[in-house]
């Protein structure tokens, strides 16, 4: 296994933290290897920002990612900049309300900012995205991801963040189920 993941978004959306959680979960709890490369501008908020995470079951010799297997976009500018680098059979995951993908490419979408607002704090959008990512890609295990979320967020917000993580995970489960049902021809309740 050798998975290259690029996460993009605005600074302040928690892009780096999301990447960190993925990498840590893989390296520490899933007993894999991982690297993280972060890149961001001088702004603390609003500028383009990206994290490159590599997860592998053997040594990783080069941490930079030219063309990712999985691209997670939390902003339109991040999408515009990176979508061309995504591998042909790569998985594209976007924030549904902030990114409008073009072209016929298949993608997964989650309105994680909206969900985070519903849960009380839009700062948790990244954690919801981690939950969604975990279920969709299977790159890290559920338990590892959840445990890493717990230890990566401020103590007072652990409970909320776990809820957020699970919200994303559940949404992904529902999305996958919807796809299965549709593929089986069961689209609605009444035929």
């Amino acid at each position, binding site marked *: 296994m050798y998975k290259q993941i690029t996460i993009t978004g605005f600074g302040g959306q928690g892009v780096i933290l999301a990447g960190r959680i993925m990498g840590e979960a893989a390296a520490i709890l899933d007993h894999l290897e991982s690297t993280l490369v972060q890149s961001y501008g001088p702004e603390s908020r609003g500028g383009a920002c990206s994290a490159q995470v590599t997860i592998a079951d053997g040594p990783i010799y080069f941490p930079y990612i030219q063309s990712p297997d999985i691209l997670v976009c939390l902003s339109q500018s991040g999408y515009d900049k990176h979508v061309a680098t995504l591998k042909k059979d790569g998985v594209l995951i976007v924030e549904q309300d902030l990114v409008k993908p073009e072209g016929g490419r298949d993608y997964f979408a989650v309105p994680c900012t909206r969900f985070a607002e519903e849960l009380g704090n839009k700062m948790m959008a990244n954690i919801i995205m981690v939950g969604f990512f975990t279920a969709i890609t299977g790159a890290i295990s559920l338990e590892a991801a959840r445990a890493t979320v717990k230890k990566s967020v401020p103590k007072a917000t652990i409970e909320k963040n776990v809820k957020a993580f699970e919200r994303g995970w*559940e949404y992904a489960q529902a999305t996958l*189920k*919807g796809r299965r*049902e*549709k593929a089986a021809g069961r689209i*609605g*309740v*009444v035929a």
Partner: protein
Amino acid sequence: MPTEFKIVLFLCSWGPHAAFQRLQDQRADIPPEIKMVRIPCSGRISKALLFKPFEMGADGVILVGCAPGACRYGTGTETAAENTEDTRQILDLIGLDGERVQLGNFQPDAADDLLAFLKAFAARIRELGKSPVRAQAGRDRFAGEPETVEAIVARHDVFACQDCGKCTSACSLALAGKPFSPRYVAAEIIAGHADRPDVRTSVNACLTCGVCYERCPSAVNFPEFIKDMRAYYHDRAVSAVPAHGGFFQSMMRAMTSESLVPRRWTHLPESIRTNPQSRVLFFGGCASYFDIFFHKFLGVQTERIVEDSLRLLNFFDVEPALMSDERCCGHDLLWSGDRENFLRLARINADAIAATGAEEIITACPECCHTLCTEYARYGIELPVKVTHMHAFLEREIGKGAVAFKAPQGRMAFQDACRQSRFDGQADLPRKLLKHLCADAPEALDDDGAPTPCCGNSAWIGCDAFSKHFQVQRLQRVRQSGSTTLITACPKCQIHLRCAMEDVLRGGDLKLETMDLVSAIARSIYWA
């Protein structure tokens, strides 16, 4: 010859009575278990009257009228045929054999045929055996319940009433012009006039919708007070006969016999998947009985709600268990004052539910949900399960995402169910679902967020011109707002409002499509 069987024969005074008299004159061997009741016309024997003997312990009922075309009043024979057919279907469903009710039509000169018919019926009843319904003897009163008016008044702290009249100014009945006032009822009962007939009539007329309680600055729970007062009258055998001849209360009392095994789910479509081992139990409620009872007038299809609920459960990968002998939850008995039979039914239900081993009950009926969840506990009956309303289940599943809804056609208004929106304080729940339903077209929803007025009745207690009046007003208002569909949340709302739409004179101005919220969702939901 004494016999253990009891058969009631309703015999029309006109044609067949002459034949029966001839048999009596001839001292013919009419089966001794047949007890004859002479009636003016077979068409006057309603479904309630056909059923009542079973509640009281009869093993069979025969309705004998004039031959088709010979009815003194024109339509009696036809009506009798319809009533008998409906009653038979309900008997089949409830677990009594439909064959226990039979219609015969005889000319005055057909004495021999009549005798043969009676003998054949008596023989058939002997074959079927005794009715599983046991007429009840002995009272089984809930211990600790107030018996005196004073105790009831004290229990609900009706003294707190400040005589402000906010209740009356919001009461649907009072607004419809009926000489009815919750404040007046409270004052009169406090003053010790509970046994006056006009007070009794008022207690009976209350819709128990809960608007008054919502408004009361002293928080006097008027519906609960009314409930206890009805039990008070019931215990003293002075309650009024409920609407529809008391058919539904009769049916529910019959269900309190443990030996009766209802066949509630015989008409379930095959496409619905169920699983007897499931940890989720679906409680259907009385919809299928309603459909048979009201089909003639309204073409109501409240069982659709139940089927759509099951389909939605399947859609979300839940294959629920069903209790094949499911009984009524007892809501209507409780609210018409018959607490002892409510308790009987509740105990049987609690045991049956516990025996399924389920962890969660889902029901689409707001009355079942309120009764199972709140009333059972209030009367000391513990259910070992969590009770979830279908709406809550849907909100949970839809909230997980990945589903979408086809845009609704036309505008829709919502009719709240009193048990859900007022009693359980869940007015937001159906509104959340409505919002999902109209996500792509918010302008299609005509709703100001507050619970709407009552549909006109509850627990089949009473219905009159005033109920009708405000039903008509409600429908007119909905129509004027440009809505074409009325979304309901309770099968009874649907029945009552559709009844109002049957108005011969105003009919055209009141017609609206009515659909339960669950059905509306089932029709438009899809995997996005």
